[in-house]
C-alpha cells in the first residue's frame, strides 16, 4: 500500500460506509433515473415499438380468451339449447377457428416479444456494463482511494442484476398486465357501469391495503439489505483475515459476533419475506371476496330490476343473468394482473435504486487531461534535427504543437524538475512543502525517509496520479500539465510495492508492459529481473496460469514478475517504489545490477526503506514530513553527518 496516500485519505468509516449496497431507506423512484434509463433504450426504440405491439396483441388474445367463455355460453350453447335455434355446430366451429387464429397470433406475439426483449434487455445491460467499466477506467486514482472496494464491485453484481430482473421481467410483465387491465376494464364497462364502479372502489381499498403492506415490507427489505451487507462484510473481513484469527485463537469471539449478526439478518429476512409472501394470498383471496360481493350485488340489481347502465348508455332492462356471470369471470381476470403488478413493485424499486447508484458512478468526473504534448518515435539526423518516425527507433521526442501551427520536437531525455511543489490529498493537510528537485538524465535519484514522509506522493505527482496544488513539475523542460497523460505515463515505468498481477499466464503478465513484445523479449526481461529461474520451476513455466492476483506465488516472486513487467516496457524513466522490499538482499543485488544495465543513461527514481537499495544512487533525497531535508550522494550525506548518517549508522553500528 502506498503509505502516504492512504494515511492522508479522509476517514470513510462509520456505519453508512457500505451504503452502496444498502439502498435508499425509502422505496422511492427518482424521475431522472427513469429518464436516463430510457435513454439507454435509444438504439432499441424500433424494437420497443414491436415489443409494445406484440405485448398488446398477446394481451388482447388472453383477454379474448377470457371473454370467449361468455360468447360461447351466450351466443352458442344457450341458443342451441333452445328448440329451433338457428345457431348450428358449424357456426360454433367457425367461431372456434376464428378464436383459434387469434390464440395462435397471441402465442406467436408472446414468443416474439420475449425474444426481442431478450436482445433489448441484454443489449442495454451490456451497454451499461461496458459504459460503466470504460468510465471507471477514466476515473482519477483519487476515486479508487476514496471508495470502498466492495461498493464498486456491487455496481457490477447486485445492481446490474436487479436491473436485469426489472428490464427483462418486471417491465414487460407490468406492460402486459396494464394492457390486460385496460382492456378488461372496458369490457366490464360494456357489461355494467354499476358493477364496474363497485369493482373500482373495492380495488382501491385493496390497493390501499397492499400499499400499506408494501410500505412495511419495503422498510423491512431495506433492513434486510442492511443486515445482508453487515453479514457479508463481516464474512469478507474475517475470512480474509482467517489466519490472523487462528493465530490469536479468536475463533470463539468471531463465532459469537457472527451469530449475533446472522441472527439479526435472519430476523429481518423473515419479516421482510413474510410481508412479501402474504401479498399474493391476500390479493388472490380478496379477488374471491370481490367475486362474492359482485355476485350478490349483481343478483340484487337483477332482482330489484335496476336499469342497467353500460358504456353505450342506459339499457331498458336490468342486467341479464348471463352478463352477471361473465362479469364475475372478468373480475377474476381483472384482479390477477393487478396482483402481478403489486408483486413487482419491490423488484422495480430495488432496480431503480441500483440504477441510481450505477449512474452515480457514470457521473463521476473523469481524470482531466488537457495535455497536448505527445510522445513520438523520433530520428535525429546529422545536423541534430529531429523528425518524427513511424517505426520504433529507440529514440523518443516530445511533439509540441504551438498555437501558431508550428510543431517543435524536444528529445525525450528524462530530465525532471520539481519546482517548489506543494501538495495535499485533503485540503488543509499539506503533505509536501516546497519540494524542489532536479533529476538529470542518466541519474538514479533515491528518496529515503520515514513512513509518511511523502516519498510515494512525489512519484504520484510525477506521473500525475494526482495533480499538484502549487509549484511546477517540468519534464524535459515541458510543464507536465501540457503533456498528455497517456504519453506521460508511457514514458515511465512504475513498479509499485503492492504488486497487482492479472489472471492469465506468467508470459501475459510480463507482456502487460509492452503488448507487442515477443516471447523472447519477455523472457529476456524476466532474466533481467532474475525471475527466469523460479518461473521455469513453475508447473507450466511461462505458461503457468496465475489466478487470484498470483496467490500461488510468494510476495518476493510477485515483485520479481512486476519488475520484469516494467523492464519489458523499456521506458526512458523508471520509478521503483519499494519494488524490492520483499526480495532478499542477495537477489536484490542481482536484480539491481540488471536494472542498472537496462537503465544506463536513463532516469531512475528509487524509493526504499533499505538503505542498501539506494546507496549507489547519484542523488539521495532525505524526506521528513513532506520536506526534503538533505540531498546529495551517499558519501556526501555521510560526511554531512545529518539524518541520513543517523539512519545509516542506525543500521550498521559496526562500521
Amino acid at each position, binding site marked *: *500500500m*502506498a*503509505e*502516504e496516500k492512504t*494515511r492522508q485519505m479522509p476517514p470513510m*468509516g462509520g456505519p453508512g460506509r457500505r451504503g452502496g449496497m444498502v439502498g435508499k431507506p425509502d422505496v422511492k423512484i427518482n424521475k431522472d433515473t427513469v429518464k436516463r434509463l430510457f435513454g439507454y433504450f435509444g438504439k432499441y426504440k424500433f424494437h420497443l415499438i414491436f415489443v409494445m405491439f406484440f405485448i398488446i396483441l398477446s394481451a388482447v388474445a388472453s383477454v379474448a*380468451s377470457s371473454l*370467449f367463455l361468455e360468447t*360461447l355460453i351466450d351466443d352458442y350453447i344457450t341458443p342451441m*339449447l333452445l328448440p329451433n335455434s338457428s345457431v348450428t355446430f358449424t357456426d360454433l366451429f367457425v367461431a*372456434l377457428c376464428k378464436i*383459434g387464429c387469434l390464440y395462435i397470433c397471441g*402465442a406467436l406475439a*408472446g414468443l416474439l416479444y420475449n425474444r426481442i426483449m*431478450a*436482445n433489448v*434487455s*441484454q443489449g442495454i445491460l451490456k451497454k451499461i*456494463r461496458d459504459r460503466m*467499466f470504460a468510465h471507471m477506467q477514466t476515473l482519477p486514482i483519487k476515486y479508487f482511494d476514496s471508495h*470502498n472496494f466492495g461498493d464498486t464491485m456491487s455496481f*457490477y453484481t447486485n445492481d446490474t442484476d436487479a436491473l436485469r430482473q426489472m428490464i427483462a421481467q418486471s417491465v414487460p410483465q407490468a406492460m402486459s398486465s396494464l394492457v390486460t387491465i385496460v382492456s378488461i376494464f372496458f369490457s366490464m364497462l360494456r357489461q355494467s357501469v354499476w358493477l364496474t364502479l363497485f369493482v373500482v372502489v373495492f380495488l382501491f381499498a385493496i390497493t390501499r391495503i397492499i400499499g400499506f403492506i408494501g410500505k412495511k415490507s419495503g422498510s423491512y427489505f431495506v433492513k434486510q439489505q442492511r443486515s445482508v451487507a453487515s453479514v457479508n462484510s463481516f*464474512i469478507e*473481513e474475517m*475470512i480474509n483475515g482467517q489466519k490472523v484469527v487462528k*493465530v*490469536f485463537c479468536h*475463533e470463539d469471539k468471531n463465532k459469537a459476533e*457472527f451469530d449475533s449478526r*446472522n441472527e439479526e*439478518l435472519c*430476523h429481518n429476512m423473515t419479516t421482510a*419475506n*413474510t410481508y412479501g*409472501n*402474504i401479498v*399474493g*394470498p*391476500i390479493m*388472490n*383471496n380478496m379477488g*374471491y371476496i370481490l367475486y*362474492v360481493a359482485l355476485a350478490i350485488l349483481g*343478483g340484487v340489481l337483477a332482482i330489484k330490476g335496476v336499469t342497467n347502465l353500460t358504456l353505450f348508455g342506459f339499457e331498458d332492462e336490468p342486467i341479464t343473468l348471463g352478463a352477471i*356471470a361473465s362479469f364475475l369471470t372478468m373480475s377474476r381476470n381483472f384482479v390477477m394482473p393487478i396482483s402481478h403488478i403489486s408483486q413487482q413493485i419491490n423488484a422495480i424499486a430495488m432496480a431503480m435504486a441500483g440504477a441510481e447508484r450505477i449512474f452515480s458512478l457514470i457521473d463521476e468526473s473523469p481524470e482531466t487531461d488537457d495535455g497536448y504534448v505527445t510522445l513520438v518515435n523520433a530520428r535525429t539526423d546529422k545536423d541534430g534535427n529531429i523528425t518524427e518516425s513511424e517505426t520504433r527507433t529507440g529514440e523518443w521526442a516530445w511533439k509540441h504543437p504551438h498555437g501558431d501551427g508550428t510543431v517543435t520536437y524536444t528529445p525525450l531525455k528524462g530530465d525532471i524538475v520539481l519546482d517548489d511543489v506543494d501538495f495535499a490529498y485533503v485540503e488543509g493537510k499539506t503533505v509536501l512543502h516546497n519540494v524542489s528537485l532536479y533529476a538529470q538524465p542518466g541519474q538514479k535519484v533515491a528518496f529515503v525517509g520515514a*513512513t509518511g514522509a511523502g516519498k510515494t506522493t512525489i512519484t504520484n505527482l510525477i506521473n500525475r496520479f494526482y495533480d499538484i496544488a502549487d509549484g511546477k513539475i517540468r519534464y524535459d523542460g515541458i510543464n507536465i500539465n501540457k503533456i498528455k497523460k*497517456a504519453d506521460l505515463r508511457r514514458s515511465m*515505468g512504475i513498479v509499485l510495492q503492492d504488486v*497487482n498481477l492479472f*489472471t492469465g499466464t506468467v508470459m501475459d503478465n510480463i507482456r*502487460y508492459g509492452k503488448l507487442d513484445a515477443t516471447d523472447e523479449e519477455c523472457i529476456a526481461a524476466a532474466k533481467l529481473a532474475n525471475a527466469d529461474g523460479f518461473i521455469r520451476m513453475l508447473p507450466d513455466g511461462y505458461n503457468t496460469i496465475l489466478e487470484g*492476483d498470483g496467490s500461488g506465488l510468494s*510476495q*518476493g*516472486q510477485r515483485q520479481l514478475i512486476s519488475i520484469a513487467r516494467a523492464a519489458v516496457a523499456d521506458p526512458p524513466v523508471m520509478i521503483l517504489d519499494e519494488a524490492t522490499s*520483499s*526480495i*532478499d*538482499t542477495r537477489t536484490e543485488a542481482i536484480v539491481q545490477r540488471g536494472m542498472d544495465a537496462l537503465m544506463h543513461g536513463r532516469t531512475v527514481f528509487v524509493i526504499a526503506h533499505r538503505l542498501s537499495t539506494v546507496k549507489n544512487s547519484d542523488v539521495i533525497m532525505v524526506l521528513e514530513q513532506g520536506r526534503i531535508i538533505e540531498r546529495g550522494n551517499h558519501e556526501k550525506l555521510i560526511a554531512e553527518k545529518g539524518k541520513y548518517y543517523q539512519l545509516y549508522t542506525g543500521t550498521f553500528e*559496526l562500521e
Partner: protein
Amino acid sequence: MIKRLAKCVREYKKSAIMTPVFVIGEVVMEVVIPLLMASLIDNGINAGSMNFVLKMGVALLVCAVISMFFGGVAGRTCAVASAGFAKNLRHDMFYSVQNYAFSNIDKFSTASLVTRLTTDVNNVQQSFMMIIRMAVRSPMMFIFSFIFAYGINAKLASVFLCVVPFLMLGMFLIIRKAHPLFKRVFKTYDKLNGIVEENVRGIRVVKSFNRQGFETDKFQEISSSIYNDFVKAEKTIAFNAPLMQMSVYTCMMLISWFGAKLIVDTGATELTTGELMSLFTYTAQLLNSLMFLSMIFVMMTMSKASAERIVEVLDEKSDITEKENAETTVKDGSIVFENVDFSYSKNADKLCLDNINISIASGETIGIIGGTGSSKSTFVQLIPRLYDVRNGCVKVGGTDVRDYSIEALRNEVAMVLQKNVLFSGTIKENLRWGKDDATDEEIINACKLACADEFVEKFPDKYDTYIEQGGANVSGGQKQRLCIARALLKKPKILILDDSTSAVDTATDSKIRKAFREEIPETTKIIIAQRVSSVQDADRIIVLDDGRISAVGDHDELLKTSSIYREVYESQVKGGDDNG
C-alpha cells in the same frame, strides 16, 4: 448432498414441514372455490335465486378466508423456515471455517470461501423457499385440479391427458437446451467479476501502463460473451410462455367444442354451463402448476452447483485436530525441532523443510535469514502448529506441539504474520485481540514496546481511531507496529516476527528490538528478516537455504563460517554495486 443440507434445517424443521401442510390447505381451497363459484352461477344467478346466491356467497367467503389464512400462515412459516435455514447454513459454514487449519484455508481460496458463504447460500435459500412452497403446491394443484375436473366430467377431463404430454415434452426440450447456456453464463459472470476486481485493485498498474483501452477491450469481450449466451438462453426460455399459452388455448378450445356438444346433445343434463366454466378454471390451474414445476426444476438445477460448493465447505475436515486430554499449560519458551520434514502438499516431490534439527532455549533471541523461497515462514509456522509436520516433531516447552490444546499453545506462542491484517474497529479494539480484558495502561505499554505509541498519540482520536477494513488508513509501517503490539499484549512465552518490521524504518526497528531485549527478556523471540541489521544482535542466527539449515551461529561466527550470510551482509553494507 441433500441429506447433508437437510441437517441444517434443525429448529426450523417444524416450519419447514408445516409450510407444505398449510400450502395443501390453501390448494384445496383454491380448487374448491371454482366449484362453489360454478354452483353460484348455475343454481344462484342463472336460476335467479338470491337466497342461493347468499348461501353460496357465505360459503365462498368462508373458503376465501380459510384460504387467505392458510396462504398467509404458509407465507409466514415459509419465510421463517427459509431464513432460518439460510442462517443455519451460514452458521455451520462459518463455524466450519473457523475450525479449519491453515492448510484447509489454503485449499479453498479466501475469495471462493466468501462467495460460498454469500452468493451460494443465497441461491440455495431461494431454491429451498421454492421447494417448500411450490414443490408441494404444484403437484397438489395438478392432482386436485385433475380430480375435480374428472369429477365434473371424465370425458372432457381426458382432454388434459392428450395435451399434457406435449407440454411436458416441450418444456423438457427447452430446459435441456437452456440449462447448459445458463451454466455457461454464470461461469462467465465469475470471469467478469474477476476482471472488475483486478482492475479496481490494480488501477495504478493499469493507469501507469496505459492499459485502460486494453482492459476495456478485455472486459467487452467478456460482456459480449455474456450478452450472446444470455440472449441465446433467454430466447430459448422465451418459448416457455407461448408453449404454455398454446396448451391452455388448445385445451380450452377442445373443451369448448366437446363441452358445447355435450351440453347441447344431452340438454344440459350431463354438463352445465357453470361446470363448463369451472373446467376452464381447472385447465388454467392444472397447466399453470406444470409450468411452475418446470421453473422449480430449472432453479434447482441452477442451485445444484451452489449446493455442492456449500457441502464441500461443510464436509471439509480440519487437518489439525486436538488430542483428548490435551496438555493445557506450556512450561516454558523452549523449542526443539527433531528431524522435521514438511511439505504443503502430501505428494510433493520436494520437501519444503528437509530434516530440520535445532534446539532453542527459553528466552533466547533467534534470527532467521534466507533467500526468497527458502522456507523461513514455513519453519516458524510449525511452532504454533499452524501446520503439522510431515515427519519428526516440534516440541515447545518440552512437549510435542500436537499434545497441547491448540488454544493453550497459541496463547503462549504469539506470531506476527508476514501478511498481516488489522480489522475494522478502533485501534483499542484491534489490540484487545491479544488480550480481551487488557487495560488502557497495558495497551499503551504494549504500543510503547512496539514503538506504536508515538504515532497513535498523533492521531486525533488516539487509541480510539477507527481502523478501516484491512487497515487501509494506516501506513504499512504503522500497521506492522500495531500488529506487533497486538501480539505483545498476549504476554507470550514465544514471540515470532515473520518479516514484521520490513516497512518500519531501521531506527525504529532497532528501537523495537532494544525494547524486546530489555522489557521481555524471558520471552523466546524468533525474528525473520531480510535486513541483516534486524537480526545481527540476536543470540543465534539460523541461515536457511532451500529448506535446510545451512548454518547456525551468532553474527561474528556466521561472517566467518557462512558464505551465504556473508554475501547477504555484504550486499547490504556495500549496497551491491560491486561484486561483494
